[in-house]
Structures are given as structure tokens and as C-alpha cells.
């Protein structure tokens, strides 16, 4: 159902645009302007014609080219006689403009173009279909309103501004989710510089059941694409943010004290806040072992990340991040520059609409804001506890940073016999990561992979691979955790990594 307040994708031909459904809001896409009002309440997946800036539902076969059947495919015609010299069309640009002005429908204009094209009848049926398709894209004003699925979102970003999602291609993303064994009722860590695409993908597969820890960089857990999934608010409660720059103190003895103590109080005093967090309910038998004496003062006195200004700067912040990415992968600079302005989305900031913001001083004292800030701090402490329990079920990393330090910092948070998957646009950082993990031990089945993806055109008499394909979908390093050797003195049995290495090399 196309519902007010939800995000939808508007598809015109091959171009997608993410918008929030609102009444009386004009949408611009691919030279079309229209209001969504007429579409509200109709099923997602409905197709519309744009007439006078309004939407009118049409059947799905409207404006679709007929695919000639095999019998119609005439291999005798081979465009041999056709001189493509742009003189074949008798209608002038002015003629066409005039027709459009007088309100001619797209179909009528195309019909006129065909009748006035001297070559049309000489063309093979495929050339005819191609011609119609080309003109259709230009003159037919059909759009489809779709649910923003992971599949469509990933493809949209890949086509428009791949650097925003670290060039994470849909097949590679699909491998991550599968290899990472993401499913409901699991406890997953995600590091995502893909605007929240991976985060959204993981949440979709978890459906708000389990725990999702988002390790974020910067002042604010950014999750632009995540918001496009229209998850119910209850899902958010299973998501815990944790700042990347506190990872190093996660496992140091000092901080384990801080964290655990702080968290224990949080759990006690905010028991009702932990609803939906499986980890809080499943008290694992081994948690006992990890508990350490703590003094509450340590953590309370520590000045935390100041989140106060985060909302205000998150936009420009993201721009900084983008340009960092651009620096690292200069070939995308152009795409990125362009993408920055016209990225087809109108998602609000992660914590809701902040269009009208009160003046700074007022804002700083705003009780609602202070409450949000307090809540976030609590959630960070919950995340800390969960991570420190070392009993997480999965780890996915797809970020703009060198992944090795992140993997090393986060693997200890996983239980044994759990899977992790690390994506990188380049393979060298993953070779480094692979090597470091081999040295570290405690992992099995390390695999560095790349997938190759190509579309195949299947049409009667004209089946062939697409003429263009993606050059790379990036690289993936995955593995399975196992119990680390605790007894370092027993050198009689060979360490597992060595053994494995011998077997596989």
C-alpha cells in the first residue's frame, strides 16, 4: 500500500528515485512533475500515467514494447538498405513541441513519429522495437511506484552514486548476508559506511528480532538508506549504536570494568528499555566468568562523545566523508560530485525531520533533545555490554576504512562457531586482513572471494549477454570463529591455523 509518510521508489524507465509520500508535494523526476496524492492508498507496484501533473493508474502493460515472437524475427532484413543520416524523420523538433503543447499523449506522438519515419518499415522487427523503446523512453510518461526493497535500493545507488555505498554491488551484498548467516533472533555487529544500506539489509533479515549493534564512525550513527526501508519503530529498539572510537577500550581490563559496571546499572534502572533485546533475555552461562569488580565513578566521570551538535552538522559531515571517499577512489569523483546534488532521495535525518530547527541556545536546552541524548548514551552502554559479553552471532563490515583493525577489535565479541564477512572495494586491504587473521588464529574457513555478475538478454532469436557489465563488485573476506587457544603452553598440538594452512596450500 502506498501510504502517506512512507518512503517509496518512483521508477521512470530505468531510473529510480526515493521519495517520501506526502500530499500536495510536487515530485520532480526525469523531466516529469507530479503530485502523489492520487496514488495514496493504491497497492505498491502500481503503474501510473502522468497527465497534468496528476497520476492516473494504468495497467502494467501500458507503454511496454511488444517483443517480436520468433516467427516474426526476419533475418532477411538486415538494415542493409538503411542510410542512417537523420534525414529519415520528416517531423521537425518544432512539430513535436507543438504537438506536446496541444496535449497530445505520448502514444500519439510516437505514432506520428513512426508514420513520418521513412525507414521504419525497412527496419527489422527488432530495430523497430528498439526504435519504439527509445522513443517510448522519451515521450511516454509512465511511472511505477515501488516498495524500496534492498534489491532496488542497492541497484539505484550503484547506478547513481556507487561511491556512496562503497561500490558494494548487489551480488556481493547478497553474499555477505548469506555467508554471515544473518537471520532473526541473532545478535549481529555491523560496521557500515554505505549510508546504512548494509544496516538496513541486516535489519530486514532480522525483522526486529535479536540485537543489531551498529559500530559507527563520527559523531552520529548515520543511516540514511536504513530509513528507506520503512521499518516499524519497534525495530529501532533492537538496534544499539556504538562509537568506533571506543572500540579500543572495549577489551582493556580498565574499560571492561567501566563498561560492565555502567551497563549493569543501566539494565537495572532501565529494565523496560531493553525490550526486544534478545541478549538481555538470554543470560548466557559464560557471562559469569567475564564479570569483574568495578567502581561506578570511572565511567560516569568520563566525558563522552558530545552528541549535542550532531544532528545539526550531520549533513555537512557526510559531505566531508564523501570527499574523503572520493579522495581514495578518484575515478568516482565525477559521479560523486554530481550525485551529491541530485541524489534521488528526500529521506529525513536519521532521528526524524529536523527541517525547522530552533536557534542553537534554545536547542541546546531543549528537554526533548536532552532526553534523546540521555537515551542514546544509555543505548551505547547497552551496546558495550553486549559486545563485551563476547557472545555475538555475526559481524558484517562494509566501510571506507582499512578493515583489519576493525576486524581485530570486533572478532573477540563473537562467540565461537559464528561467521563474519568483511567487504572491501579493493582486495589489498583484505589480503592484509587475511594475513593478520591467519597470524592471530581463532578463525577457520577464511575465504577471499570476488563475484562476477553479468546480465543475459533473452529475446526470441536475439539471446546474448549484455554488451556492458560491471567491472567489479568488490571483494569479500569471510570466515568462521572458533575457540582461541587458551593454553599457550601446550605446544604439542599444532596451532589450528598452521595445520589448516598446510592442508589448503
Amino acid at each position, binding site marked *: 500500500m502506498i501510504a502517506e509518510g512512507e518512503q517509496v521508489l518512483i521508477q521512470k524507465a530505468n531510473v529510480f528515485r526515493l521519495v517520501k509520500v506526502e500530499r500536495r508535494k510536487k515530485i520532480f523526476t526525469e523531466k516529469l512533475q507530479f503530485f502523489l496524492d492520487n496514488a495514496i492508498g493504491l497497492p505498491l507496484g502500481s503503474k501510473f500515467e502522468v497527465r497534468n501533473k496528476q497520476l492516473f493508474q494504468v495497467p502494467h502493460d501500458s507503454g511496454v514494447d511488444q517483443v517480436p515472437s520468433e516467427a516474426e524475427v526476419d533475418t532477411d532484413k538486415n538494415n542493409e538498405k538503411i542510410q542512417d543520416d537523420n534525414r529519415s524523420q520528416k517531423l521537425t523538433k518544432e512539430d513535436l513541441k507543438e504537438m506536446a503543447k496541444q496535449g497530445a499523449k505520448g502514444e500519439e506522438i510516437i505514432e506520428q513519429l513512426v508514420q513520418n519515419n521513412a525507414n521504419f518499415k525497412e527496419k527489422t522487427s527488432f530495430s523497430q522495437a528498439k526504435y519504439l523503446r527509445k522513443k517510448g523512453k522519451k515521450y511516454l510518461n509512465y511511472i511505477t511506484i515501488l516498495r524500496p526493497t534492498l534489491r532496488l535500493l542497492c541497484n539505484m545507488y550503484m547506478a547513481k552514486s556507487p561511491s556512496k555505498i562503497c561500490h558494494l554491488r548487489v551480488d556481493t551484498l*547478497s553474499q555477505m548476508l548469506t555467508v554471515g548467516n544473518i537471520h532473526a533472533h541473532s545478535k549481529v555487529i555491523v560496521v557500515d559506511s554505505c549510508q546504512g544500506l548494509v544496516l538496513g539489509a541486516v535489519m530486514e533479515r532480522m525483522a526486529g528480532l535479536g540485537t543489531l549493534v551498529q559500530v559507527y564512525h563520527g559523531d552520529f550513527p548515520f543511516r540514511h538508506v536504513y530509513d528507506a526501508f520503512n521499518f516499524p519503530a519497534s525495530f529501532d529498539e533492537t538496534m544499539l549504536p556504538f562509537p568506533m572510537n571506543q572500540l579500543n577500550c572495549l577489551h582493556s581490563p580498565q574499560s571492561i570494568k567501566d563498561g560492565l559496571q555502567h551497563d549493569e546499572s543501566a539494565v537495572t534502572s532501565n529494565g523496560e528499555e531493553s525490550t526486544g533485546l534478545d541478549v538481555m533475555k538470554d543470560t548466557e552461562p559464560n557471562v559469569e566468568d567475564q564479570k569483574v569488580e568495578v567502581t561506578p565513578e570511572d565511567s560516569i566521570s568520563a566525558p563522552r562523545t558530545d552528541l549535542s551538535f550532531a544532528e545539526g552538522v550531520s549533513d555537512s559531515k557526510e559531505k566531508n566523508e564523501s570527499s574523503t571517499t572520493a579522495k581514495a577512489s578518484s575515478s568516482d569523483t565525477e559521479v560523486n560530485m554530481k550525485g551529491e546534488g541530485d541524489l534521488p532521495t528526500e529521506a529525513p535525518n536519521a532521528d526524524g525531520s529536523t527541517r525547522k530547527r530552533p536557534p542553537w541556545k534554545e536547542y541546546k536546552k531543549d528537554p526533548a533533545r536532552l532526553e534523546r541524548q540521555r537515551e542514546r548514551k544509555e543505548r551505547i552502554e547497552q551496546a558495550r555490554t553486549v559486545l563485551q559479553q563476547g557472545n555475538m552471532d555475526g559481524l558484517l563490515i562494509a566501510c571506507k576504512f582499512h578493515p583489519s583493525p576493525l576486524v581485530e577489535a570486533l572478532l573477540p565479541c563473537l562467540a565461537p*562457531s559464528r561467521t563474519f564477512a568483511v567487504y572491501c572495494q579493493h582486495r589489498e586491504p583484505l589480503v592484509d586482513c587475511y594475513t593478520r587473521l591467519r597470524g592471530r588464529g581463532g578463525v577457520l574457513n*577464511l575465504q577471499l572471494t570476488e563475484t562476477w555478475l553479468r546480465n543475459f538478454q533473452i529475446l526470441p532469436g536475439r539471446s546474448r549477454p549484455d554488451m556492458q557489465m560491471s567491472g567489479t563488485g568488490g571483494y569479500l573476506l569471510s570466515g568462521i570463529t572458533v*575457540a582461541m587457544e587458551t593454553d599457550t603452553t601446550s605446544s604439542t598440538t599444532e596451532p589450528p591455523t598452521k595445520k589448516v594452512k598446510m592442508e589448503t596450500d
Partner: protein
Amino acid sequence: MSFVRYKETAEEGDVVIIYLTHESMFPLTLEAGRIFQTRFGALRHSDIIGTRFGSKVLCGGGRGYVYALHPTPELWTLTLPHRTQIVYTTDISMLTLQLDLKPGSVVVESGTGSGSVSHAVIRTIAPTGHLYTFEFHQQRAEKAREEFSDHGLSSLVTVTHRNVCTDGFGLSDVADAVFLDLPSPWEAVASAKLALKKAGGRLCSFSPCVEQIQRTCDKLRSHGFCDITTIECLLRTFDVRSIALPEPDLGRPDTCAQTQQEGGESAENFTFKSAVPPKDMPGHTGFLTFATLYPQMETS
């Protein structure tokens, strides 16, 4: 136990994946008192029962060891007893995502085969979705039903022994997605359309040959499916190695006068870590054809 929910400790009756090496893994259903022979020596089930998944387990009287891993659909795909040609994780990943599967999805599959796809689909649609899977080979259907039960998945899947090409799915307006892995998938398209929800859904057909997808695409078009796309996805697994390429000995620049060095090579190497592509890799598994069925427009 259940394949769709992690547990911590291996218990009697659980399926564990015994990991010897990357190339050598076996599924094992734990029964106290039994012994499993590995090439590293005898492994007593009792030594696994009660230990944490992912622990090292000694075998051969302590001379060797293996790891006892928690089963996942991916490990199962690698280790399952083959009854048919199976679909592997690369294609399963792609079809899961491209069919928009998530918890709560209702999926129709045929054929069940060795259950490789089924396990992965169930993992993704649990705990609220359902898989209807159809297999025309009776013994395979029974075996699959048994396995789903052993893996704690019975409530999430219905296995039916039927030739869907001739007899249809017998389902109407229930499915979010249909997956076809059949020799003649085009024969199941009409029935698949019926099984899909009126609100729309996705279909995937997996076939190795071009002729199969040609006929299937024709059929999909004539039945009103849209956005028909066919893809191939290949996995290349790299070997991470340290390579030392010898630097050539070009002699001394100051003079052509020189005595031949022993071995003739300079002592230096150009050394680097590399992700070395495999000598051979899977060149083709099958074509994955996807299509969307959009909601019918209500004619008012």
C-alpha cells in the same frame, strides 16, 4: 536444535559440522557412545556432547583434533548428502536477495532436490514465514521431510511429493516468491502465477541451458510477468600467498667483463602478498531468471 537459531552447547541429537580442513567437513548427528572415524583418528560423539560449538575436540586418543561447528545453511550446502545436482551458496545468495525474501515471506519451491536451497530459504523467512516445497521424486521428498524434522525446521516447511509441471502447485494467492529448479520450468509458470499473492510477488527460475531460459522467458512474458532479467553469477576464490619473484641478474653496468655467477640469479626477490586467482573455477552453474508479478489493476 534448530538450524535457524544459534545455541551455545552441542547436545545429544544435535547436528554438528565436523571440521577437519577447509576441504574436509562432515555433518554428524550426535549420539552418545558412537564413534566417528576421521583421517585424524577416531572421534567420540561423547567428547562433543556438552562442549561449546566452535570448540576444539580431540580425536585419535588426543593425537589429532577437529572442530565441532554449529550448522548453518551454508555449511550444510557444503556437506549435505547429495541426492541431486545442488544449487550452491553464490546462486542461493543472489536468489534470496532478488526474491526479496525476509522473515515472514511465504515461498514456493520446486524441486526440493537435496534441500540446499530450502535450508537457506527457511533460515531467511523464519520465524514467521513458510516454505512450500515440491519434489517429484518420492524418496527425495521423504528424505527432505526427515531432514527438516531433524534440523528443527518442520513448522516452517511443508514438503509435497508431486510433479508440479503436470499437476500444479495447488496453491492460490499465498506466495511472495516462487523458486523453480526444474528441467522444464516453463511448464510450471502458469501454476506459479496462481500461487503468487494477488498483491504481487517475485519469481526465480534456475536453469543451466540457454534453451531452457528462452522458453521460460517466453512463457513468463505471455503470462504477464514484468522486469524479466536473467543473470549469471560466478564465484572466484583467491588463494592468499606470499610470492617471491626473483629479480633478474642483468650483470654489472660498469663492464661487460664478468665471470658467470653460480645459479645465475641475483639474490634479491620482488616479494609481495597476493590474492592469487585459482587455476580453475566454476565457469557456469546456471542462469538465474527473475521476474516480477505486479498487482492486477482493479477495474472499477
